[in-house]
């Protein structure tokens, strides 16, 4: 429980429930400000670069990428794991913190969930275009076909198909169910006729009766209970893409928990980056407060330390196992041709989160912004190090090679950021990006106490 006599209040200077509706819907009813246009312009430019790269990938084939015979997996898989990881923080905030009754999640929950949806969309693009013939992606589904074969259910790559699509579907449903009451609020408040029609359609007849709220609560709770193990399973399954192989550096049992911790770590960093930006664009200091940032940095300290522990455990076991190939893979990571990538990863992921132990840094917005971006960079390099350094020096020295990314690789990666930010910036123009009902729940308790105080 959030005891406000001991902790900071979760909502500031709200004098009525109507004020919350008004403030959240205000940006939806007026033209966006300059900052929004600038961000949107940049995102669109990045997206365009991605679209051009995608065109070349589809029409020329994945030969336009830097991948080669030894390094068969590179940027695409790195980006895939990176984006799935980003999504995990949203589910952590919306589901796991709901189960733990952490009330501070209420005002940041919607933007975090939205981030999950868009991050999973970005992630899903990469394995599909990596197929080379993405139009045959439906072959992954087990349907009776003229080839007379079923799909290989023993393969972690197939588990991925099921895990990611389940994760996306359940997150989407959870996100939508949470938004239905807010759409109803917007429907009842808007003066614009066309908007009223659209909101009527998507608020599916919601009227806020006691019975529907009661069921809504139960459904949210059970969905959270299902989504919590789901999110842990998703990144565990992603990690088995590597862990079930026999490549030194991949073949480790520590991978599932290590990947889950890393996912939540990077996701929270991304949530922080995004929230600091939207707080600036919309002047949302009232709903997204320093207290939220501080709580999230604490999650980052924990998960960042877990990631650091995983790095050292991996290294220790590589030596302690007595397996020469394993030890070589790890020494090669730290001192081989990709030493710089390894040390960027260690600096950003192990050192920088530890700075959050200092209250001064934890409560300084510029410091949080810089560190959160560093962590995102570090987590991208973590996946790059795992994927590329394990492959470029394999068992046969004759097939040792180097990897260098092409502009198409870079374009797809940058384009995925363009897609993510474009979708996000569009959403905050048309949807309730702060959960109106959940914030009212917090504010009403405060307003009620006040009315009792004054008799």
């Amino acid at each position, binding site marked *: 429980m959030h005891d406000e006599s001991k902790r900071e209040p979760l909502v500031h200077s709200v004098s009525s*429930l*109507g004020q919350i*509706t008004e403030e959240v819907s205000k940006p939806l009813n007026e033209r966006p400000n300059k900052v929004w246009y600038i961000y949107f312009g940049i995102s669109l430019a990045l997206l365009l670069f991605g679209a051009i790269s995608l065109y070349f990938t589809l029409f020329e084939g994945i030969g336009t990428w830097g991948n080669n015979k030894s390094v068969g997996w590179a940027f695409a898989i790195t980006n895939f794991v990176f984006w799935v990881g980003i999504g995990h923080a949203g589910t952590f905030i919306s589901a796991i913190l709901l189960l733990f009754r952490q009330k501070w999640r209420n005002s940041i929950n919607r933007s975090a969930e939205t981030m999950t949806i868009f991050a999973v969309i970005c992630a899903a693009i990469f394995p599909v275009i990596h197929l080379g013939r993405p139009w045959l992606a439906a072959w992954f589904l*087990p349907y009776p076909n003229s080839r*007379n*074969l*079923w799909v290989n*259910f*023993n393969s972690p790559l197939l588990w991925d198909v*099921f*895990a990611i699509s*389940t994760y996306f*579907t*359940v997150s989407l*449903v*959870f996100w939508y*169910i949470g938004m239905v*009451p807010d759409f*109803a*609020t917007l*429907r*009842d*408040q808007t003066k614009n006729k066309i908007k009223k029609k659209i909101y*009527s*359609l*998507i*608020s*599916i*007849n919601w*009227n*806020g*009766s*006691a*019975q529907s*709220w*009661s*069921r*809504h*609560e*139960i*459904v949210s709770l*059970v*969905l959270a209970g*299902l*989504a919590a*193990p*789901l999110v842990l*399973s998703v990144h565990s*399954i992603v990690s*088995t893409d590597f862990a079930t192989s026999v490549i030194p550096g991949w073949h480790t049992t520590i991978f599932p928990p290590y990947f889950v911790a890393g996912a939540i770590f990077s996701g929270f960093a991304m949530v922080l980056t995004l929230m600091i930006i939207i707080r600036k664009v919309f002047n949302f200091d009232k709903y997204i407060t320093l207290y939220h940032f501080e709580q999230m940095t604490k999650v980052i300290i924990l998960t960042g330390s877990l990631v650091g522990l995983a790095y050292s455990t991996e290294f220790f076991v590589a030596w302690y196992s007595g397996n020469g190939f394993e030890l070589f893979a790890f020494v090669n990571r730290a001192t081989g041709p990709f030493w710089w990538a390894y040390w960027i990863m260690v600096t950003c992921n192990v050192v920088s989160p530890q700075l959050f132990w200092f209250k001064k840094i934890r409560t300084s917005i510029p410091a949080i912004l810089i560190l959160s971006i560093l962590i995102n960079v570090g987590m991208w390099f973590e996946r790059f190090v795992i994927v590329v350094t394990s492959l470029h020096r394999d068992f046969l020295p004759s097939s040792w090679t180097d990897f260098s990314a092409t502009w198409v690789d870079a374009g797809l990666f940058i384009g995925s950021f363009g897609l993510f930010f474009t979708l996000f910036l569009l959403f905050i123009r048309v949807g309730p990006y702060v959960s*109106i*009902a*959940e914030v*009212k729940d917090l504010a*009403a*308790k405060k*307003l*009620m106490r006040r*009315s*009792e105080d004054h008799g």
Partner: protein
Amino acid sequence: MAKKVKIGFYNDEGVLLSALKVLRHKDIKIHNVFTPYPVHGLDDIIGLKKSRLPIVAFIVGALGAFGAMGFQIWSLALDWTINIGGKPGLAIPSFVPITFEIMVLSGSLSMVAVFFLRNRLFPKLKVDNIIDPRATNDHYVVSIDPECCSDFNSNELENILKETGAIEIQDKEVIE
């Protein structure tokens, strides 16, 4: 079916909850309560039964899990075994992840579908069941069926609502 009800507006959660207790105490049947957010403790006061939606999730989730495991066993161990590096066709442990995913997917989707059906949540261009636009914004609306309580006539009901702190009272027709 249209039905005539008397509705009272409240603007404070505490006042609403104590008002509902008073109404219950006087044996006035509460037709419905409309709130902008889920008010905790409301279900108990107006005597709502706990939703059985989780049972749907459990049953369909279990069916989904059995179905997924069964299908994987049937397709790879019985129907057409694919020989991959000499590994066995009946590999139960590697069927577990997909079984779990299908369980979660079928459980959650079925529960949500039943939730929509039970609450009659369907897309409509013109919404016909809202009690008042303020009920989704900043007011709590209590509706009472005036015919159900033979002890009180219409005026007495209005007075009781006013005494409990209602700031406004209206007569309204709602669709059952």
